[in-house]
């Protein structure tokens, strides 16, 4: 019996009674996933594949942090939560718009996530677009004009899709570890 079997009715009920809890769940799990994927401890040392009918007989190395397993658990929880969110409405629901697709706008430099973002999501507040100076200002938040800098972060779904693509080509997770070049664990090699 899967440990997730009774998850659906619980999520379904929570989505109606307290949708903010599901929003928190999605936010926490996705941010955990994004952090794990960029963490240097992921993927953890490959363990031999153990079919689940045999895994109950073997006690895995307890106490040791297994980041690969944590990533897999994040994926599995999200696999079960999204369908429940989708079945709520045939049209994109408020929940989807406000939680999954909402692009947060960060002003100034206090955005923790700014360093992780790619420059294409940086939008200048003033009218100058694609001019010479935009190259310098998109390189990082400039300390002189923090109030003018507005950064639009990609939505959860956008980040998740790009994260999943990376995970499909992650050395030591979905590709042989020997394909890794230096510290670049994401290698877009056809499998």
């Amino acid at each position, binding site marked *: 019996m899967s440990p997730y079997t009774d998850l659906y009715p619980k999520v379904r009920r929570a989505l109606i009674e307290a949708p903010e809890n599901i929003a928190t769940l999605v936010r926490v799990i996705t941010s955990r996933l994004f952090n794990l*994927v*960029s963490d240097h401890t992921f993927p953890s040392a*490959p*363990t*031999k*594949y153990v*079919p*689940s*009918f045999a895994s109950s007989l073997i006690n895995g190395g307890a106490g040791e942090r297994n980041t*690969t397993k944590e990533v*897999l658990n994040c*994926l*599995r929880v*999200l*696999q079960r939560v*999204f*369908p429940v969110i*989708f*079945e709520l*409405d*045939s*049209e*994109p629901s408020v929940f*989807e718009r406000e939680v999954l*697709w909402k692009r947060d706008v960060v002003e100034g430099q206090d955005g923790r996530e700014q360093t992780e973002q790619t420059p294409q999501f940086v939008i200048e507040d003033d009218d100058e677009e694609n001019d010479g100076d935009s190259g310098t200002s998109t390189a990082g938040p400039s300390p002189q004009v923090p109030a003018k800098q507005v950064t639009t972060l990609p939505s959860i*779904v*956008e980040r*998740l*899709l*790009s*994260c*999943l*693509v*990376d*995970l*499909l*080509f992650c050395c030591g*997770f*979905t*590709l*042989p570890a020997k*394909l890794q*070049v230096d510290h*670049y664990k*994401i*290698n*877009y*090699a*056809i*499998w």
Partner: protein
Amino acid sequence: MSGCPAAGTSHLSDLYREKGVGSTADLGPSQAYDANKTEVLRLLLVLLSRQIYTPPSSLLTSPSRYTLHFVQQSRRRDVLTILCSLLNTAMNSSQSPNTTVIGGVAGRLPYNHLVFKGEDPRANLVSVCFQVLCTVLDFQSGSARDVPTPDLQVCSPASKTNAFRYFLAKVVRRVSESVWNSA
């Protein structure tokens, strides 16, 4: 998350895992990697399945934002890599050897799929590859609809409408050309 530096073209063949488009060498599958790929693809498939909650009447007019984003906003390099990987894995399914002892036996004995349910990581991966391919390639809703070509009276995909359909057409053309040339 970072990409890798561009690999030299002379070593390109080393990068392909599956036999198939652009690849001839089979470097041997790995069970754990297959199982991990299946988990990632399964979540991708869940995200691409938003469309099934849309009523049939508005299926073509209200596209799933998730699939639309995936087929239109993905980077060109990602599209090609994902498409070729899925195609290779799906097309090699018939000749892939079962590497687990139990999986191998289970695949050959009747009713053993009921006992060792879903325990062949390779079969699971192939299955989810086909499903993702179908969802992505069949997606023609909203702005992902094939555009009619001005000269010919047919509709064809463009990289702006559905990049996966567009590149599949290109790959097929390339492969059939090479087959004709070698024949």
